[in-house]
């Protein structure tokens, strides 16, 4: 009688451990996936390069900064 409940509890425990392991695995997997999707977006934006307005801006500012106040 005792043995049976022991086995039952043991099985339950094993099941829980498996569930937790699966959960941890799944969480890790999901987090990696979030990062991957986020990076895809980021990379896509980076690929757009530098819009003209910034290149122009920096070129303007490249000149000796004697007209600092005018901009």
């Amino acid at each position, binding site marked *: 009688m005792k043995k049976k409940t022991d086995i039952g509890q043991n099985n339950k425990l094993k099941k829980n451990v498996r569930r937790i392991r699966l959960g941890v695995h*799944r*969480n890790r*997997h*999901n*987090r990696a*996936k*979030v*990062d991957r*999707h*986020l*990076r*895809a*977006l*980021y*990379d*896509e*934006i*980076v*690929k*757009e*390069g*530098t*819009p003209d*307005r*910034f*290149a122009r*801006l*920096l070129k303007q*500012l*490249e000149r000796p900064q004697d007209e600092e106040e005018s*901009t």
Partner: protein
Amino acid sequence: MMTSVQTIQAEMLTAIPSLRAFAISLCGNVDFADDLVQETLCRALKHLHSFQPGTNLNAWLFTILRNLFRSDYRKRRREVGDADGHYAERLCAQPEQDDKIQFGEMLAALQRLQPDQREALILIATAGCSYQEVAKICNCPVGTIKSRVNRARMRLAELLEIDGPEDFGPGHALRAVHVTN
């Protein structure tokens, strides 16, 4: 002295695409983001003397942009939360996007994160910063950054219905079926 200033300016030019990517992910709107980038560059050039050569220029620029975004600049401009759908569509117009989460969806989901968590996640997951660098940028302990990033990832996974080992959660699978039909 002059040459070092010029090198920093040249480096700044190469940093702009990442700076934009950070700004757009952060505020979800391309026009707002580009204004932020411009303001960041102006400030950086004005305070060039406070940059220590040899340290990470990108991290320095991210710090300026992040502080600008958090300051009254955000309030002065426009309310956050309006992810730029048109811009996302433009990005999405490229092929081989079918197995990815739509960029618009991602931008919108990012806007629903708490700002603290959002900035930490973007900096860690995409901008290639270390936890130490992000802690410095956000002016808080490394442990705080770690837990923010963790919470941000879990929340994003929830919002995007990312779950389980298959590429999409049930929501996405269903949506994909509707789209293809």
